[in-house]
């Protein structure tokens, strides 16, 4: 019975639509859980600045507040270990997701980011057996998610030697930054057959190609509604075909349920992997209709889903 337990969400950034959807999912699922008496309280906390140190102090303050479990989307995989260890030492259950922490006492709900990069190239190899030039849009330099996905993409390119990365820019996971960076490098690039991304930059890239007056290459999409909508429009107009890979922001709710189950005395493995959200040509419409205007395609977890996921 966890009806007197309090679970907190520690979040380090709220400045983009993915994080907003993540917080929204958390709020939706946890307030239902609180109402149903499953837990006593489950507030979310966000730091003002996307900063490791601020999140570390935030976690320490949550320890002080006496939460029973803390669900973390971490700003850094290692740098929060000190604070996480302190939480564990205080008897608090720590569950990390999306941005996971490496501290052994914590639970991890990991996404196989490298795989996320690799399957993009696998998909391209199927679509373009002859290969071609690739443009890579990366995230924020020095952040581990960026490195992992990029490593996956490069591994994919190694496996399919018909592809060649002719340009690589950092879009900082912000659509307008991506658009700017792509627009800058495009003039100097030869014919680009496809654009590999980290999810979320597809629309910006498409805009940049359009502005430069170039043919739109095959762009791997993310899960934002505007990307999916653009894809749909292109599909209807000229049969444009691509795929989308992303992480569902609703993974925060899986974190919540995992924490709840641990508090409930269930045994849960320390390392879990969740599949990423993949949208293909044929399930595009279905996904699009489930996505609210301006939001992101999402999957939220119920207790049952969570139980299934840890099996």
């Amino acid at each position, binding site marked *: 019975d966890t009806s007197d337990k309090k679970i907190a969400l520690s979040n380090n950034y709220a400045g983009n639509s993915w994080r907003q959807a993540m917080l929204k999912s958390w709020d939706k699922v946890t307030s239902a859980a609180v109402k149903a008496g499953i837990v006593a309280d489950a507030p979310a906390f966000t*730091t003002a*600045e996307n900063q490791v140190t601020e999140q*570390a*102090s935030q976690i320490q303050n949550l320890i002080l507040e006496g939460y029973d479990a803390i669900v973390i989307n971490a700003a850094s995989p*290692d*740098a929060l270990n000190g604070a996480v260890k302190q939480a564990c030492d205080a008897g608090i259950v720590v569950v990390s997701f999306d941005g996971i922490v490496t501290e052994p006492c914590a639970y991890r709900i990991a996404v196989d980011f490298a795989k996320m990069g690799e399957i993009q190239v696998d998909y391209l190899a199927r679509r373009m057996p002859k290969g071609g030039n690739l443009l890579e849009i990366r995230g924020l330099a*020095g952040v*581990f998610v960026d*490195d992992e996905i990029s490593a996956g993409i490069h591994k994919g390119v190694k496996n399919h030697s018909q592809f060649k990365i002719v340009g690589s820019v950092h879009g900082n996971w912000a659509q307008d930054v991506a658009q700017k960076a792509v627009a800058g490098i495009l003039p100097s690039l030869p014919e680009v057959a496809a654009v590999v991304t980290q999810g979320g930059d597809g629309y910006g890239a498409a805009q940049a190609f359009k502005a430069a007056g170039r043919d739109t290459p095959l762009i791997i999409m993310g899960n934002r509604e505007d990307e999916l909508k653009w894809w749909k429009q292109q599909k209807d107009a000229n049969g444009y075909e691509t795929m989308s890979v992303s992480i569902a922001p609703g993974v925060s709710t899986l974190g919540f349920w995992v924490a709840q189950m641990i508090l409930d005395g269930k045994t849960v493995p320390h390392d879990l992997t969740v599949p990423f959200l993949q949208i293909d040509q044929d399930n595009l419409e279905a996904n699009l209709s489930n996505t609210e205007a301006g939001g992101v395609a999402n999957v939220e977890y119920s207790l049952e889903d969570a139980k299934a996921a840890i099996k």
Partner: protein
Amino acid sequence: MKRYLTNPKFLRSALPAASLLVLLAAIFYIQPRAMSQFGMNLMLQYAVPIALATIAQMFIITVNDLDLSIGPFVGLTACIGATLLNTNPLLGVLALLACIAAYAALGALIHWRNLPSIVVTLGMSFVWLGIAVLVLPTPGGTAPDWVKAIMSFKVPGIPFPLIAAAIIAVVVHFALMRTSYGAVLRGAGGNPKAIGRAGWSLLKTKMIMYAAAGFFGVLAGLSLIGLTSAADAHIADRYTLYSIAGVILGGGEFVGGRVSPTGAVLGALTLTLTGSFLIFLKISPDWQIGAQGGILILVLALRALINRREAQA
């Protein structure tokens, strides 16, 4: 005594402490559990590296410059600390010394060409970040054990962060405010021409102040990894703004060499505590960021109130 209490100099220096105490009182009121060694330790631990970075920034502000690169610089030293310093201590120490030397060289360059420090340090912030990404391409590394040991030092009864803050404040106060050469260094911010006319080398004062900033930047980086035990290149990006805000909160001014080391340390503590205050308030996530701004405004408004009282007296 009366003269002392109404002395504007005294009031000016008492303000940062007053704001800190008010904030602390508010926190204790909302969350009594914070009023313990354990609580203070948890709340204030991360104030130590911020205080060190703030002191570094203060040295630069003393000579009328502004350092927009201190955050990435602290990140770089953290990365070096978590890699080279651990695996090859000699090389690590050399690399950190080179960082300090680079800071001194920056000071020399800025003086020699009479450059706006903002642009130079803005440029350097990219350089530090770039080197950090090269040193530590993916986050990780391990802090040397002795660094961790220092940062988890425990004294019965008194929270370590308070001891550390006091030591920093006292040492820097003594060096900058009490030594005879400290007066020359501050004078170089107040009226550089006068210092030059009295026969001192302005190049030397700039280099010393920049080197001191570099040194405290290194300390900030090391103390940071002592707490986090690992590093990443972006670990301290925001320290640039924090450190500037800390100096100003502590009663420092942007020009004219008017700074206060104790004030700067108190400013850093205040900044850190606003974060805690917020958690205890339990505000809806939408407004948490805004509330942080609101608290900063409140703290400063309180100072304005005291200031105006002082002006009327």
